[in-house]
Protein backbone atom coordinates (compact mmCIF):
# COMPACT_ATOMS: atom_id res chain seq x y z
CA UNK A 1 0.00 0.00 0.00
CA UNK A 2 2.39 2.71 1.01
CA UNK A 3 5.17 0.90 -0.79
CA UNK A 4 3.77 2.38 -4.00
CA UNK A 5 4.24 5.96 -2.90
CA UNK A 6 7.56 5.00 -1.39
CA UNK A 7 9.20 4.16 -4.73
CA UNK A 8 8.85 7.54 -6.34
CA UNK A 9 10.33 9.62 -3.58
CA UNK A 10 13.32 11.42 -4.96
CA UNK A 11 16.17 11.44 -2.56
CA UNK A 12 16.32 14.60 -0.46
CA UNK A 13 18.77 15.71 2.20
CA UNK A 14 16.25 15.67 5.03
CA UNK A 15 14.16 12.77 3.76
CA UNK A 16 11.02 14.83 3.39
CA UNK A 17 9.56 15.64 0.00
CA UNK A 18 10.33 19.03 -1.52
CA UNK A 19 6.67 19.76 -2.17
CA UNK A 20 5.62 19.17 1.41
CA UNK A 21 8.43 21.38 2.66
CA UNK A 22 7.37 24.07 0.20
CA UNK A 23 3.86 24.03 1.61
CA UNK A 24 5.09 24.39 5.19
CA UNK A 25 7.35 27.34 4.37
CA UNK A 26 4.48 28.90 2.44
CA UNK A 27 2.18 28.45 5.44
CA UNK A 28 4.78 30.13 7.65
CA UNK A 29 4.68 33.14 5.35
CA UNK A 30 0.87 33.09 5.37
CA UNK A 31 1.02 33.50 9.15
CA UNK A 32 2.54 36.91 8.51
CA UNK A 33 -0.11 37.77 5.93
CA UNK A 34 -3.03 37.02 8.19
CA UNK A 35 -1.17 38.33 11.22
CA UNK A 36 -0.96 41.75 9.59
CA UNK A 37 -4.63 41.71 8.60
CA UNK A 38 -5.62 40.69 12.12
CA UNK A 39 -3.34 43.34 13.63
CA UNK A 40 -5.04 45.98 11.50
CA UNK A 41 -8.45 44.79 12.66
CA UNK A 42 -7.45 44.86 16.32
CA UNK A 43 -5.79 48.27 16.00
CA UNK A 44 -8.96 49.76 14.55
CA UNK A 45 -11.20 47.98 17.05
CA UNK A 46 -13.29 50.61 18.77
CA UNK A 47 -11.91 53.36 16.56
CA UNK A 48 -14.79 53.79 14.16
CA UNK A 49 -16.05 57.33 13.90
CA UNK A 50 -19.51 56.29 12.80
CA UNK A 51 -21.60 53.13 13.03
CA UNK A 52 -22.80 50.48 12.44
CA UNK A 53 -20.67 48.74 15.04
CA UNK A 54 -19.93 45.02 15.31
CA UNK A 55 -22.47 44.29 18.02
CA UNK A 56 -25.16 45.87 15.86
CA UNK A 57 -24.56 43.64 12.86
CA UNK A 58 -23.10 40.32 13.95
CA UNK A 59 -25.27 37.21 14.00
CA UNK A 60 -23.17 35.04 16.26
CA UNK A 61 -25.39 32.00 15.93
CA UNK A 62 -25.11 31.96 12.16
CA UNK A 63 -21.39 32.49 12.25
CA UNK A 64 -21.00 29.74 14.84
CA UNK A 65 -22.75 27.38 12.47
CA UNK A 66 -20.34 28.42 9.72
CA UNK A 67 -17.41 27.90 12.03
CA UNK A 68 -18.65 24.48 13.00
CA UNK A 69 -18.94 23.50 9.34
CA UNK A 70 -15.41 24.62 8.58
CA UNK A 71 -14.12 22.68 11.57
CA UNK A 72 -15.91 19.58 10.41
CA UNK A 73 -14.49 20.07 6.94
CA UNK A 74 -11.05 19.76 8.54
CA UNK A 75 -12.18 16.43 9.91
CA UNK A 76 -13.33 15.19 6.53
CA UNK A 77 -10.08 16.46 5.01
CA UNK A 78 -7.90 14.55 7.46
CA UNK A 79 -10.00 11.47 6.77
CA UNK A 80 -9.39 11.95 3.05
CA UNK A 81 -5.66 11.97 3.76
CA UNK A 82 -6.04 8.89 5.95
CA UNK A 83 -7.89 7.16 3.13
CA UNK A 84 -5.27 7.82 0.50
CA UNK A 85 -2.46 6.78 2.83
CA UNK A 86 -4.23 3.50 3.53
CA UNK A 87 -5.05 2.81 -0.10
CA UNK A 88 -8.80 3.42 0.06
CA UNK A 89 -9.57 5.51 -3.07
CA UNK A 90 -13.35 5.50 -2.76
CA UNK A 91 -13.26 6.78 0.80
CA UNK A 92 -10.72 9.40 -0.26
CA UNK A 93 -12.97 10.70 -3.03
CA UNK A 94 -16.00 10.73 -0.74
CA UNK A 95 -14.13 12.65 1.95
CA UNK A 96 -12.72 15.10 -0.59
CA UNK A 97 -16.20 15.70 -1.92
CA UNK A 98 -17.55 16.21 1.59
CA UNK A 99 -14.79 18.72 2.32
CA UNK A 100 -15.52 20.59 -0.88
CA UNK A 101 -19.23 20.75 -0.11
CA UNK A 102 -18.63 22.02 3.41
CA UNK A 103 -16.15 24.56 2.10
CA UNK A 104 -18.75 25.80 -0.35
CA UNK A 105 -21.35 26.03 2.40
CA UNK A 106 -18.94 28.10 4.46
CA UNK A 107 -18.32 30.38 1.50
CA UNK A 108 -22.04 30.66 0.93
CA UNK A 109 -22.42 31.75 4.52
CA UNK A 110 -19.75 34.40 4.02
CA UNK A 111 -21.38 35.72 0.88
CA UNK A 112 -24.74 35.88 2.68
CA UNK A 113 -23.19 37.67 5.61
CA UNK A 114 -21.45 40.26 3.43
CA UNK A 115 -24.58 40.99 1.44
CA UNK A 116 -26.67 41.26 4.58
CA UNK A 117 -24.23 43.63 6.26
CA UNK A 118 -24.03 45.74 3.15
CA UNK A 119 -27.80 45.87 3.02
CA UNK A 120 -28.13 47.16 6.57
CA UNK A 121 -25.64 49.95 6.02
CA UNK A 122 -22.23 48.45 6.57
CA UNK A 123 -20.62 49.18 3.22
CA UNK A 124 -16.94 48.52 2.55
CA UNK A 125 -15.85 52.09 3.22
CA UNK A 126 -18.40 52.87 5.90
CA UNK A 127 -16.04 52.94 8.85
CA UNK A 128 -12.87 51.41 10.28
CA UNK A 129 -14.68 48.29 11.41
CA UNK A 130 -16.12 47.65 7.96
CA UNK A 131 -12.84 48.21 6.13
CA UNK A 132 -10.75 45.99 8.37
CA UNK A 133 -13.50 43.37 8.72
CA UNK A 134 -14.24 42.96 5.03
CA UNK A 135 -10.59 42.91 3.99
CA UNK A 136 -9.67 40.36 6.69
CA UNK A 137 -12.59 37.99 6.23
CA UNK A 138 -12.72 38.63 2.50
CA UNK A 139 -9.16 37.51 1.97
CA UNK A 140 -9.74 34.56 4.25
CA UNK A 141 -12.70 33.66 2.08
CA UNK A 142 -10.54 34.03 -1.01
CA UNK A 143 -8.12 31.54 0.52
CA UNK A 144 -10.97 29.14 1.20
CA UNK A 145 -12.06 29.59 -2.40
CA UNK A 146 -8.60 28.77 -3.68
CA UNK A 147 -8.64 25.75 -1.38
CA UNK A 148 -11.95 24.59 -2.82
CA UNK A 149 -10.53 24.98 -6.32
CA UNK A 150 -7.45 23.02 -5.25
CA UNK A 151 -9.56 20.18 -3.84
CA UNK A 152 -11.88 20.08 -6.84
CA UNK A 153 -8.81 19.77 -9.04
CA UNK A 154 -7.56 16.88 -6.93
CA UNK A 155 -10.93 15.20 -7.03
CA UNK A 156 -11.17 15.50 -10.79
CA UNK A 157 -7.58 14.36 -11.10
CA UNK A 158 -8.30 11.28 -9.02
CA UNK A 159 -11.09 10.23 -11.38
CA UNK A 160 -8.85 10.22 -14.45
CA UNK A 161 -7.24 7.10 -15.83
CA UNK A 162 -3.94 7.41 -13.97
CA UNK A 163 -5.56 9.05 -11.01
CA UNK A 164 -3.21 11.31 -9.13
CA UNK A 165 -0.25 9.14 -9.98
CA UNK A 166 2.16 7.54 -7.61
CA UNK A 167 2.50 10.69 -5.53
CA UNK A 168 -1.20 10.81 -4.70
CA UNK A 169 -0.69 10.55 -0.96
CA UNK A 170 1.64 13.52 -1.09
CA UNK A 171 -0.76 15.67 -3.14
CA UNK A 172 -3.69 15.04 -0.85
CA UNK A 173 -1.58 15.44 2.27
CA UNK A 174 -0.21 18.78 1.05
CA UNK A 175 -3.68 19.99 0.13
CA UNK A 176 -4.80 18.95 3.57
CA UNK A 177 -2.12 21.10 5.18
CA UNK A 178 -3.38 24.12 3.26
CA UNK A 179 -6.98 23.36 4.16
CA UNK A 180 -6.24 22.95 7.86
CA UNK A 181 -4.29 26.18 7.85
CA UNK A 182 -7.22 28.07 6.41
CA UNK A 183 -9.32 26.51 9.17
CA UNK A 184 -6.99 27.54 12.00
CA UNK A 185 -6.89 31.10 10.66
CA UNK A 186 -10.67 31.07 10.90
CA UNK A 187 -10.43 29.81 14.48
CA UNK A 188 -8.39 32.90 15.30
CA UNK A 189 -10.69 35.23 13.34
CA UNK A 190 -13.84 33.78 14.91
CA UNK A 191 -12.50 34.38 18.39
CA UNK A 192 -10.92 37.77 17.93
CA UNK A 193 -13.48 39.31 15.60
CA UNK A 194 -16.81 37.75 16.48
CA UNK A 195 -16.59 36.53 20.04
CA UNK A 196 -14.42 39.02 21.87
CA UNK A 197 -16.41 42.15 22.73
Amino acid at each position, binding site marked *: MSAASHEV*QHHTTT*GVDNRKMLMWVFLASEC*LFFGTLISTYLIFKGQSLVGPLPEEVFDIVLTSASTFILLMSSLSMV*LAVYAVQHGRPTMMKAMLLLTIVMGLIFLGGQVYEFRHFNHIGLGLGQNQFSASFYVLTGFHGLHVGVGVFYLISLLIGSTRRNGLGKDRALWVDTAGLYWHFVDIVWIVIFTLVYLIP
Partner: protein
Amino acid sequence: MEHQQAAAHHEEHPPTTIRQYILIGVILAIITVVELALTEAFDLETRTLVILLVALSSVKFAIVVALFMHLRFDNPLFWRLFAFGLVLAGSILVALLALFWGDHQESRTVAAYATPGAVAAHAAAGDDDHGDEGTPAAGGEATPGEGGAPAGDPAAAVVQDMPVGEFFQANCAACHGADRQGVVGPALTPERLTEPDEFYHDTIANGRTGTAMPPWSPQLSDEDINALVQFIKHVEP
Protein backbone atom coordinates in the same frame (compact mmCIF):
# COMPACT_ATOMS: atom_id res chain seq x y z
CA MET B 1 20.60 7.77 3.35
CA GLU B 2 18.85 4.62 4.51
CA HIS B 3 17.92 6.26 7.77
CA GLN B 4 16.36 9.13 5.89
CA GLN B 5 14.32 6.81 3.75
CA ALA B 6 13.21 4.92 6.85
CA ALA B 7 12.14 8.19 8.42
CA ALA B 8 10.21 9.04 5.28
CA HIS B 9 8.49 5.68 5.38
CA HIS B 10 7.48 6.32 8.98
CA GLU B 11 5.85 9.63 8.11
CA GLU B 12 3.76 7.99 5.41
CA HIS B 13 0.94 7.31 7.81
CA PRO B 14 0.73 8.72 11.30
CA PRO B 15 -0.72 6.28 13.83
CA THR B 16 -4.10 8.01 14.31
CA THR B 17 -7.16 5.85 13.52
CA ILE B 18 -10.45 6.94 11.98
CA ARG B 19 -12.15 6.65 15.33
CA GLN B 20 -9.54 8.87 16.93
CA TYR B 21 -9.90 11.49 14.21
CA ILE B 22 -13.65 11.58 14.71
CA LEU B 23 -13.17 11.89 18.44
CA ILE B 24 -10.84 14.85 17.88
CA GLY B 25 -13.48 16.41 15.66
CA VAL B 26 -16.08 16.02 18.37
CA ILE B 27 -13.76 17.61 20.92
CA LEU B 28 -13.22 20.58 18.60
CA ALA B 29 -16.97 20.97 18.19
CA ILE B 30 -17.54 20.81 21.94
CA ILE B 31 -14.92 23.49 22.58
CA THR B 32 -16.63 25.71 20.02
CA VAL B 33 -19.98 25.23 21.79
CA VAL B 34 -18.35 26.12 25.11
CA GLU B 35 -16.89 29.30 23.58
CA LEU B 36 -20.28 30.24 22.22
CA ALA B 37 -21.92 29.60 25.57
CA LEU B 38 -19.36 31.69 27.41
CA THR B 39 -19.96 34.60 25.05
CA GLU B 40 -23.72 34.51 24.84
CA ALA B 41 -25.12 32.74 27.83
CA PHE B 42 -22.98 33.97 30.71
CA ASP B 43 -22.39 37.49 31.86
CA LEU B 44 -18.65 37.46 32.35
CA GLU B 45 -16.32 40.33 32.98
CA THR B 46 -14.63 41.27 29.70
CA ARG B 47 -11.12 40.45 30.81
CA THR B 48 -12.08 36.99 32.05
CA LEU B 49 -14.02 36.29 28.91
CA VAL B 50 -11.13 37.33 26.70
CA ILE B 51 -8.66 35.17 28.60
CA LEU B 52 -10.94 32.13 28.46
CA LEU B 53 -11.75 32.55 24.79
CA VAL B 54 -8.13 33.00 23.82
CA ALA B 55 -7.17 29.95 25.87
CA LEU B 56 -9.87 27.76 24.34
CA SER B 57 -9.07 28.89 20.82
CA SER B 58 -5.41 28.22 21.41
CA VAL B 59 -6.31 24.68 22.41
CA LYS B 60 -8.32 24.21 19.21
CA PHE B 61 -5.48 25.71 17.19
CA ALA B 62 -2.94 23.40 18.80
CA ILE B 63 -5.10 20.32 18.28
CA VAL B 64 -5.58 21.01 14.58
CA VAL B 65 -1.94 21.82 14.04
CA ALA B 66 -0.54 18.92 16.02
CA LEU B 67 -2.99 16.18 15.13
CA PHE B 68 -4.69 17.11 11.86
CA MET B 69 -1.61 18.66 10.32
CA HIS B 70 0.45 15.90 11.88
CA LEU B 71 3.15 18.13 13.26
CA ARG B 72 3.36 15.80 16.23
CA PHE B 73 4.41 12.90 14.06
CA ASP B 74 6.31 14.53 11.24
CA ASN B 75 9.88 15.65 10.77
CA PRO B 76 10.75 18.30 13.42
CA LEU B 77 11.89 20.59 10.63
CA PHE B 78 8.24 21.27 9.82
CA TRP B 79 7.19 22.60 13.17
CA ARG B 80 10.35 24.69 13.32
CA LEU B 81 9.62 26.25 9.95
CA PHE B 82 6.02 26.91 10.91
CA ALA B 83 7.03 28.23 14.32
CA PHE B 84 9.25 30.83 12.68
CA GLY B 85 6.26 32.30 10.94
CA LEU B 86 3.82 31.89 13.77
CA VAL B 87 6.05 33.32 16.49
CA LEU B 88 7.10 36.24 14.33
CA ALA B 89 3.50 37.03 13.39
CA GLY B 90 2.45 36.85 17.02
CA SER B 91 5.30 39.08 18.16
CA ILE B 92 4.55 41.69 15.54
CA LEU B 93 0.88 41.61 16.52
CA VAL B 94 1.72 42.19 20.17
CA ALA B 95 4.24 44.93 19.32
CA LEU B 96 1.80 46.78 17.08
CA LEU B 97 -0.98 46.59 19.65
CA ALA B 98 1.37 47.90 22.31
CA LEU B 99 2.50 50.72 20.02
CA PHE B 100 -1.07 51.78 19.27
CA TRP B 101 -2.42 51.23 22.76
CA GLY B 102 -1.16 54.53 24.10
CA ASP B 103 -2.73 56.46 21.22
CA HIS B 104 -6.09 54.89 21.67
CA GLN B 105 -6.26 55.43 25.39
CA GLU B 106 -6.58 59.10 24.66
CA SER B 107 -8.60 59.25 21.51
CA ARG B 108 -12.33 59.34 21.68
CA THR B 109 -14.77 57.45 19.58
CA VAL B 110 -18.45 56.77 19.43
CA ALA B 111 -18.35 53.94 21.96
CA ALA B 112 -16.68 55.99 24.68
CA TYR B 113 -19.43 58.56 24.62
CA ALA B 114 -22.30 56.19 24.69
CA THR B 115 -21.81 55.50 28.40
CA PRO B 116 -23.26 57.75 31.10
CA GLY B 117 -19.90 57.74 32.82
CA ALA B 118 -18.33 59.63 29.97
CA VAL B 119 -21.09 62.19 29.99
CA ALA B 120 -20.75 62.74 33.72
CA ALA B 121 -17.01 63.13 33.42
CA HIS B 122 -17.47 66.04 31.06
CA ALA B 123 -20.20 67.71 33.04
CA ALA B 124 -17.40 69.10 35.19
CA ALA B 125 -16.05 70.96 32.15
CA GLY B 126 -19.04 73.24 32.36
CA ASP B 127 -20.91 71.77 29.51
CA ASP B 128 -24.59 71.43 30.32
CA ASP B 129 -25.55 70.08 26.99
CA HIS B 130 -26.44 66.40 27.12
CA GLY B 131 -25.91 65.96 23.46
CA ASP B 132 -29.38 65.55 22.09
CA GLU B 133 -29.17 65.31 18.37
CA GLY B 134 -31.05 67.72 16.30
CA THR B 135 -31.96 70.02 19.17
CA PRO B 136 -32.11 73.42 17.61
CA ALA B 137 -30.82 76.42 19.42
CA ALA B 138 -28.82 74.28 21.77
CA GLY B 139 -26.37 77.09 21.93
CA GLY B 140 -28.12 78.73 24.83
CA GLU B 141 -25.65 78.47 27.64
CA ALA B 142 -26.53 78.62 31.32
CA THR B 143 -23.41 80.60 32.09
CA PRO B 144 -23.13 83.69 29.96
CA GLY B 145 -19.50 84.61 29.56
CA GLU B 146 -17.33 86.41 27.10
CA GLY B 147 -18.16 84.14 24.28
CA GLY B 148 -21.15 81.95 23.79
CA ALA B 149 -24.08 82.39 21.52
CA PRO B 150 -27.04 84.58 22.06
CA ALA B 151 -29.85 82.24 22.80
CA GLY B 152 -31.09 80.41 19.74
CA ASP B 153 -28.60 81.37 17.04
CA PRO B 154 -25.41 79.37 16.81
CA ALA B 155 -24.28 81.29 13.72
CA ALA B 156 -24.21 84.54 15.60
CA ALA B 157 -21.91 83.39 18.37
CA VAL B 158 -18.74 85.32 19.12
CA VAL B 159 -15.45 83.54 19.71
CA GLN B 160 -12.35 85.50 20.73
CA ASP B 161 -13.91 88.77 19.57
CA MET B 162 -14.90 87.60 16.12
CA PRO B 163 -17.98 85.94 14.68
CA VAL B 164 -17.70 82.16 15.06
CA GLY B 165 -17.74 81.68 11.26
CA GLU B 166 -14.78 84.00 10.85
CA PHE B 167 -12.94 82.33 13.69
CA PHE B 168 -13.47 79.04 11.95
CA GLN B 169 -12.13 80.36 8.65
CA ALA B 170 -9.09 81.85 10.34
CA ASN B 171 -8.16 78.89 12.49
CA CYS B 172 -9.87 75.71 11.37
CA ALA B 173 -10.35 75.99 7.64
CA ALA B 174 -6.73 75.21 6.85
CA CYS B 175 -7.30 71.60 7.89
CA HIS B 176 -11.06 71.27 7.74
CA GLY B 177 -11.69 73.20 4.56
CA ALA B 178 -13.11 76.64 3.94
CA ASP B 179 -16.37 74.91 3.02
CA ARG B 180 -15.99 72.54 6.01
CA GLN B 181 -15.85 69.59 3.64
CA GLY B 182 -12.58 68.35 5.08
CA VAL B 183 -8.99 68.46 3.82
CA VAL B 184 -6.46 66.96 6.21
CA GLY B 185 -9.07 66.85 8.92
CA PRO B 186 -12.58 65.43 8.61
CA ALA B 187 -15.58 67.24 7.21
CA LEU B 188 -17.43 69.20 9.88
CA THR B 189 -20.95 69.52 8.60
CA PRO B 190 -24.24 68.94 10.44
CA GLU B 191 -25.00 65.77 8.43
CA ARG B 192 -21.68 64.17 9.37
CA LEU B 193 -21.57 65.17 12.99
CA THR B 194 -24.01 62.85 14.70
CA GLU B 195 -22.25 62.20 17.98
CA PRO B 196 -22.91 63.78 21.37
CA ASP B 197 -21.59 67.32 21.88
CA GLU B 198 -19.11 66.11 24.51
CA PHE B 199 -17.27 64.17 21.87
CA TYR B 200 -16.56 67.26 19.78
CA HIS B 201 -15.99 69.46 22.80
CA ASP B 202 -13.37 67.05 24.00
CA THR B 203 -11.72 66.81 20.58
CA ILE B 204 -11.44 70.58 20.27
CA ALA B 205 -10.28 71.05 23.83
CA ASN B 206 -7.77 68.21 24.00
CA GLY B 207 -6.87 67.49 20.38
CA ARG B 208 -6.62 63.97 19.00
CA THR B 209 -3.44 61.96 19.40
CA GLY B 210 -2.07 60.39 16.29
CA THR B 211 -3.57 63.10 14.12
CA ALA B 212 -2.75 66.72 13.43
CA MET B 213 -5.62 68.04 15.57
CA PRO B 214 -4.10 70.16 18.31
CA PRO B 215 -5.64 70.96 21.71
CA TRP B 216 -7.31 74.38 21.85
CA SER B 217 -7.74 74.56 25.57
CA PRO B 218 -6.82 76.73 27.44
CA GLN B 219 -6.52 79.30 24.60
CA LEU B 220 -10.22 78.80 24.03
CA SER B 221 -12.58 78.90 26.94
CA ASP B 222 -15.32 76.35 27.44
CA GLU B 223 -17.88 78.83 26.17
CA ASP B 224 -15.79 79.41 23.04
CA ILE B 225 -15.52 75.70 22.45
CA ASN B 226 -19.23 75.20 23.01
CA ALA B 227 -19.96 77.90 20.49
CA LEU B 228 -17.74 76.18 17.96
CA VAL B 229 -19.42 72.85 18.63
CA GLN B 230 -22.86 74.34 18.08
CA PHE B 231 -21.62 76.08 14.97
CA ILE B 232 -20.29 72.99 13.27
CA LYS B 233 -23.22 70.84 14.35
CA HIS B 234 -26.06 73.17 13.42
CA VAL B 235 -24.95 75.73 10.89
CA GLU B 236 -24.84 74.70 7.27
CA PRO B 237 -21.60 75.64 5.49
